């Protein structure tokens, strides 16, 4: 178990890993995530399950090199093992037939978005997907998203591919021309915040999937708490998906940076040790 059977570079610093995990492959649903740990003194980090192959007993993960832990996972080669892998975690996406779905994926958010739109499409919804990134090089999973959407729009901040502009510009255009029944936004915290503000203006129910900091992922540590309405919720067991219009995004963004100083020190030390080797 946990053997990497296929590794592929999707973009600069972003990798797709196919990992042997037959039990998770069988039980995971759209919206679920897993927790992975690399090395005996490794950190537990949450990662989205993008896809699974029941015949091969594998799951697909997409990982971006950010801190020490994600760099360590990305450094593993085909045939090597992730030390620990546990899941599926979190509540699956509430899939139902609502009509037209506007799916907004930003950057790495394309990965969690893929299983979600697949499921919505299978349930008979019309799916319009907007994939946005800063630049052409950071657009991932284009073909897969396009293949599972009725309409597929690309936006880049610098105009190197698709339409130029922020994701909200593309959203406004779609909303202006047709009735959207539900919006889903997955991506960087700031992006999700502005997606939520955009749909709120138009009264479109919106769901976001939060990438909070976690340790155990089973409801024990409370690191992933987020304010939804007037309540504190735990992303790992109550989420990761929540009503975007009720989330305190400013608090969420601050909490995402909760260990930034410590993480930077760890990363510096890690890079130094890599150079020494």
């Amino acid at each position, binding site marked *: 178990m946990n053997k990497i059977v296929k590794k592929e570079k999707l973009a600069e610093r972003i990798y797709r890993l196919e990992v042997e995990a037959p039990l998770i492959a069988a039980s995971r649903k759209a919206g679920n995530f897993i927790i992975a740990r690399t090395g005996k003194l490794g*950190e537990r980090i949450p990662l989205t399950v993008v896809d699974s192959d029941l015949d091969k007993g594998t799951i697909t993960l997409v990982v971006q090199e950010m801190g020490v832990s994600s760099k360590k996972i990305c450094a593993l080669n085909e045939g090597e093992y992730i030390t620990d892998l546990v899941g599926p*975690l979190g509540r699956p996406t509430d899939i139902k037939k609502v009509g037209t779905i506007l799916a907004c994926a930003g950057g790495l958010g394309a990965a969690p978005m893929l299983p979600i739109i697949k499921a919505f499409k299978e349930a008979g919804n019309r799916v319009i997907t907007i994939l946005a990134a800063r630049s052409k090089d950071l657009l991932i999973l284009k073909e897969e998203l396009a293949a599972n959407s009725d309409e597929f729009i690309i936006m880049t901040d610098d105009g190197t591919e698709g339409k130029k502009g922020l994701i909200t510009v593309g959203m406004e255009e779609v909303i202006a021309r047709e009735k959207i029944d539900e919006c889903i936004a997955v991506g960087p915290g700031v992006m999700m915040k502005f997606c939520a503000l955009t749909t709120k203006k138009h009264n479109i129910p919106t769901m976001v999937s939060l990438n909070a900091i976690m340790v155990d992922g089973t409801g024990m540590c409370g690191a992933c708490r987020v304010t939804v309405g007037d309540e504190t919720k735990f992303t790992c067991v109550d989420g990761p998906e929540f009503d975007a219009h009720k989330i305190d995004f400013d608090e969420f963004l601050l909490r995402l940076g909760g260990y930034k100083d410590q993480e930077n020190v760890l990363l510096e030390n890690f890079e130094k040790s890599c150079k020494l080797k």
Partner: protein
Amino acid sequence: MKQSLDYYKELRNEEWRVALRKNIKAKERIAKERVEMPEVPPMVRSKSQTTEVNKGLTKEMAVEEAKRCMDCANPTCIDGCPVGINIPKFIKHIENEEPLKAIATLKESSALPAACGRVCPQEKQCEANCFYTLKLNKPAVAIGHLERYAADYENNSDEKVVQEVAPSNGIKVGVVGSGPSGLAFAGDMVKFGYDVTVFEALHEIGGVLKYGIPEFRLPNSLVDVEIESLKRMGVKFETNFIVGQTQTIEQLREQGFKSFYVASGAGLPRFMNIPGENVNGVLSANEYLTRVNLMFAGSAEADTPVIKGKNVAVIGGGNTAMDAVRTAIRMGAENAMIIYRRSLEQLPARAEEVHHAKQEGVFFNTLKNPIEFLHESGKLNAVKVQHMELGEPDASGRRRPIPIEGKTEIIPIDVAIMAIGVSPNPIIPNSVKGLDISKWGTIEVSEETRQSSVEDIYAGGDIVRGGATVILAMGDGRDAAASMHKKLQAEMNN
């Protein structure tokens, strides 16, 4: 579970024990002073996360202390033990200089003697029911210290106690959670001959013994020894397996599991719902202790980060609060304090932990209740507390803390650790149909049999009690094993 008095009498009348009793006059026994546990000096131990505070008794100390035990005809101490250890018998083996027989006696009733000897609140259990406490008004026999001595003796010896295991009956039973309750259950069931598999959500076996209780109070290596001993007896462990998520109870039934014991433990940490509680720097004791104990955050090679505060306040007064505040000291806090809304006398933590915390420099800021966390750009920098005074006793019998109107104070801190309790883990309650759940989210079970509303599911420990001690959780595990065994046996015979 206590046996009949006749049972204890019969063992007490064995020749060797009669001889031991005759050896020393009761008066001489009573005249002996209680042994003192040797400790590493506070200035030394508070610099290390892994140095155990208590050093353990020497053989001479242990034998001397064992001589204090009167080997009472009615051993009331056993009434205080949730797992019903035959206390006089194990102590007399120590007096007789046969520590391996002592550990064998302990293992008849406890799967985790090295842990229990260290973390049980003996002063509220066996030692509170000791003849010395009840009748002589003298310090009790140091039952906990002696238990630890016997367990450590075996661990440091090449000779090991071989525990008898009944021939396999091939019946598969599943345990959800590898904390003290699950391990106690697994130990008894494997002895009865069952094919036992323990499913653990984390990557490590041991539950709270690993992620919660710090190394300086209970070394992980000792927990591993006890786990190894269960493995040798035939217990199987599956880590990284969340029952209810990785596979459901229903799927496990299809794979032939006949019955389950749910000991999934404490879940969601409680917060106070006061302003500023979600700013960075305010975290649960679970998170803090898990980062340090399970993930080794703070050690140079570990990848998991932890905030090392200069001025740390731990909110709460239980054992978890003591563990957290003493961990903070070891992580280099310049000032570490407990903020507790009642007075020092009412602290729920064990007296020994409070004593050790004080020695290590923890400041007990009592009769204060946090009402707001203050911050600068999302980073905690102070806590505002309400001063309290004690009023009339409440339902728990303790005097109720009431706010002193208009008296508040702002205390500068950079880390606040919330240790005010936990709610049960919701994963099993959410994933099993037909399970009766209380309004607190705990699983409802029959007090007598530990059976839930679903016939093949038993439960115990924190998922039933909401929050308790290691030993109470173990007691539940033993009770559940006994009653599940009885039921499965009856089914087999039909």
